[in-house]
Every structure is written in structure tokens, then in C-alpha cells.
């Protein structure tokens, strides 16, 4: 698969896919998208980069081990539900912080933190499976 065309295109394609995955992640609260599908897109970006340029360079690029990324995502998702304890509400009650940023309404919320957690879990888990499979192939 390491043709010159693919190797040249793959970094741009991967970067674009990761960017798109973040877009899909953030629009997911009320529109199609979200952490899971965004995570899948990002994981396939890493897989494509791995096929084109080798698994070692992917691992260098993401620095952390994919499983650690997944662990962090799980941690973050679980913590997102805890904030409501301070307001005397039940677990996982959503908390919103809406403010004006130079005329643009920005809505930060615990569901978003939860969704980013899911995103990281999917990127980490699917990414580590994909990378392990690709490594086995190139041995």
C-alpha cells in the first residue's frame, strides 16, 4: 500500500479527518454526530496514516499509548457526571455555562465533557486495535 501517491496524500487526509472528527464531535449535542462517531472518524484517520507511513510514526505522533488515551476518556466521562453533586442534584444531571464571547453565544456543558470523554475512549480503543492489527501485518 505504500505507493507514492498514497504516502503523499495520507498526512493531509489524516489531518483533515481529525479536524472533521472534532467538528462532528462538537455539533453532536443536538444534531447528528457526537463522541462515538467522531471518535470512529479520528481512529480511521490514524489507521490511514498508519497504513501509509508505518505504525511507528503514528505512535510517535500521538505520543500517549492509545489505551492510556482511552483510560483518560473514561475518567473524564465519569467525572463529568459528578459536578452536579455540588448543586444537590442527582448523578449525571447536566450543568450549563452559557456566555457571550465577542458576540457569539458559547455553550459549555457537562454533556460536552462527557462526549469528549466518549470520543477519547473510542479513539483510544479502536485506535489501539487498528494499530495492533497493522503492526502484525507489517512484521
Amino acid at each position: 500500500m505504500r505507493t507514492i501517491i498514497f504516502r503523499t496524500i495520507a498526512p493531509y487526509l489524516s489531518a483533515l479527518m481529525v479536524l472533521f472528527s472534532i467538528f462532528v464531535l462538537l455539533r453532536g449535542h443536538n444534531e447528528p454526530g457526537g463522541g462515538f462517531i467522531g471518535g470512529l472518524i479520528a481512529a480511521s484517520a490514524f489507521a490511514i496514516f498508519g497504513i501509509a507511513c508505518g505504525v511507528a510514526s503514528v505512535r510517535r505522533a500521538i505520543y500517549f499509548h492509545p489505551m492510556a488515551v482511552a483510560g483518560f476518556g473514561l475518567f473524564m466521562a465519569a467525572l463529568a457526571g459528578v459536578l452536579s453533586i455540588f448543586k444537590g442534584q442527582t448523578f449525571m444531571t447536566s450543568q450549563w455555562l452559557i456566555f457571550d464571547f465577542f458576540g457569539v453565544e458559547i455553550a459549555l456543558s457537562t454533556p460536552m465533557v462527557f462526549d469528549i470523554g466518549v470520543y477519547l475512549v473510542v479513539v483510544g480503543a479502536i485506535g489501539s486495535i487498528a494499530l495492533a492489527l497493522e503492526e502484525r501485518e507489517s512484521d
Partner: protein
Amino acid sequence: MAGSSVTVDLSQAMITAHVAAADWLVVAPSLITILGGSLCLMLRKHTSLQPKLGNAFLGLLVLANLALLARVLDHGIITMVMGNWLPPFGIAFTVDTLGATLSLIASIVAFCAGIFGSATVDATGRRYGFYPFLLLLMTGVCGAFLTGDIFNLYVWFEVLLISSYGLLILGNDRIQLDGAVKYGVLNLIGTNLFLIATGLLYGIFGTLNMADIAMKAAALEGAATGTLATVAALYFLAFAMKAAAFPVNFWLPASYHTPNVVVSAVFAGLLTKVGVYALIRVFVLILPESRAYMADVIALVAIATLMTGAIGALAQSEVRRLLGYVVIAGIGAMLAGVAVGSTLAVSGAVFYAVHSIIVMTALYMAAGVMKLIGGSYDLRKLGGLYNKNAAFAAVFLVLAFAVSGLPPFSGFWPKIILVDAAFADGRAWLAAAILLSGFLTTLAMGRVWIFAFWRGGPEGTPDGELATATATEGSASLAGGAIWVPLGILTALVIYFGLQPEWMLELSTQGASGVVEPLGYLRSVFGEQG
């Protein structure tokens, strides 16, 4: 988005009252283990840190469960609905004495296993995630015990199953993969049946909240009762698979002897009991009429399970396989309680589950110690353990008596209750099966005692002589307390529940009456109008 201009009366759909921070204990067990598990997962390269971190979180889990049980005993059944939605729309965690007791005992056992694992799981096992898997397994187990939503119960089943797959293949031996395939395939079929049954149940009632289903099922009449009986049969098959009841029990002895012995200990203690718990929850609390309808079938399955377990144990010469059959025999006893279904019988089943969680974990740990001291799991190669370590021989004897249901240990009381309840229900055959199975288990455990402890050496050693050449010099690795402390704690619990059964009797009776007469459970979820 959130700031819409239409005003909606949120009190119709959401809880507006203040929730006491102490009620958060309901989610604490799952939350602690998820946070601990993910932290261990992030730090899994630091193999020396893993046991400390993992055991700290497991200790925290025990404390949280203790506080939760104390709160339930104080304040009655607690319900918390996630995300502030009103039931039945939100996912409810409803904790009664039954769930809190089992969750506490399970977490004690997991804590002991965590300590035991710090001595028996090597650096490779730790790097491949023994502690993250153990903690996430406990997330599933505690979540299953505490949830009040049947689909949520399915999700916790999946969580604990996925973690258990990971634990099962830790070490990557050929035989482990073989065991994991059998375990995996049967459990996949079981959980799929569970899911299908839940879908059908949702089709009938339009709700997944257990209390809501219980109320609607009690009011159901006409043709739908036939559909409900089908759903109940599907549930029974699914949970029986998980609990390793008679026709679908073959996966347990085929897989439980393959992983690291501490993993077998956790599995034998916890996983099958979650299946039994689900049976009690669904059949006694939610669908009591279907249980009464199926009582004869459940009784037959119980008798068959009791017999296969005990006879299978007699036929084995590998200690861990033998113990696998003993687990199955215990499942039969608990099923007998479900078949009878009175408060007395269910309390016997709950007490038996508590006893079985503790004693089976301890016995698998003891099997691990036998391997360390005697160098083998095979009864033909073991021998002379009494001479090598008399204290361990005493511990094993206590556990063997307890698992056979002999006094004065923890297995005695639940068996008495179950036999008593079976007679009161006019099922003499069931009572006879419980007693006969106990007798055969005594024989099976006696074989282990005679061969491994009394005989001077491996098979062929003449009576009264000691084999001069010891099999291995593995005693060096036994020096640490990491092996003896957990085994000691569990054995002490076995003796305590045998000599002072009042506390556990009280808990199991309260737990059983909470599911047999579920008014308190329903009110906890829906308030006074329930």
C-alpha cells in the same frame, strides 16, 4: 439549545427536590471503580504502582459499600434517578437490602482478590491490565446489584462480561484461549437472549424500570399473560446460562481452571452469583406470577444442577475443575430457593449466595496455595501438604466443611433454611436433593483432603510414609502476607457467619422480604402513590 424561549413545566418530567449528598452513595461503588479502573489503565506501565493503586480503590469500594448498606438499613430503600429525570423516564438506581448486602460482600471478596493478586499476578499480567480489569469487573458487578432498571442491568452484565473476557485471557496461554472461546460463546448467547427478552418485555409494558414493570405485570390480564410467560422463560434460560445451571453448565468447568488462579477465584465467587441475583430480581420481584407458573421447572433444574455439580466434583482429579463443579452444586441450592419462592426460601438463597461468594473465592485461593506449596493442581501428584503446612491444612478443612454445608461454618445455616422452606412448600424431593448434594460434596472435598493433605506424597506413596523428595521448593514465594491475609480474612468470615449467623440472617430475611413483598421497593421509586 438550552436557552429556548418556550417555558416548559419541568416538574412534570424532572426532579426538582434537593438530593442529599449521602444518596450519592448509591452510585459511589460504580463511580469509584470506573475512576480507579481508568486511572490504573492510564498508569498500566508502572507495574509496581498498580497493586497499590488498585487495592486502594478496592478498599475505598468496600468502605463505600459499607456506608451504603448502613444507609439502607437506616433509611430504607434508596432510589436515585440519573440526570434528574423522573422515573420511569430516567434510569433508576434502586438499592434495597438485598442489593446492598451482595454488593458489600462482593467488594470484600474483590479487595481480598486484589491483595492476593499483588503476590500471584506477575509484572506481565499487571502490564496487560489485571487491576483495571478487576476494577471494571467490579463496576459491572456492583452496578448489576444496585440498578433498578432492567436494561441498565443488561448493560452492567456487558460491562462485567467484557472485563471478564480480558481477565480470562490474561497471560495468553493456548489453553486460556480455548477456555475463553467456550466461555465467550455461551455468554454471548446468554446476553443476547437477555437482550431479546428485554426487548419483548419493553414491547409488552413500554417501560424498563423494574418497579414500573412489577406494577404493570401485576395488573396484566388476558392474552398478554401468555407472551409474558414466554418472556419469563427466555429470561430464565439467559440467567441460567450465566449462573451455570444444569443443561447449560458445561462452560464453567471448561473455562474456570484456565486463567491465573486469583482470576478463577473472583469468577467463581462473583460471576455466577450475579446470574442468580438477576434471577431473584426478575422472577421474585418483577414477574412473581411467572415464577409461580414455572416453579416446577425451576425446581427440576435445581435438582439436576445440584446433582450434576456434586457428582461432577466427585469425578475430577484436578482441584480447580473439581471446585468448578462445586460452584455449580451451590448454584443448584440457590435455584431451589427461587423455585420455592417464599420469603424464607429466598432468604436462604440470598444467605447461600453470600456464603458461596466468600467460600468459593477462598477455596480457589486455597487451590493456588496448594499449587505453590505442593507444585501441582493434580490430586494424583499432590500429597503431604499437612506435613508441609499444618495451618493451611486447617484453613482448607474449615473451607471444605463450609462448602459441604457442615456446622459450625457458614454453609450450614442457608442449607437448613432451604431444606426447611422446601419441606414447608411440600417439595420433599428438592429438600432431599439439597441434602444428598451436600453429602456428595462432603465426599468430594474429603477426597481432596485425603489425597492432598493426608497422603504422605504423590500417588503411590504407601500409607504412613512420607515422600522424601518434595515436589518443588516453592515455599520461598510464600513468605509474604499478601497470600495469607486475604485467605485469612475470608476464612474468618466463613467462621464468623457460622458461629454468629444472626446478622446475616437478619440481612437476608430483610432482603428477601423486600423482593417477595415489593411495596417498599415500588414506593421508593414512585413515592406514596405506588
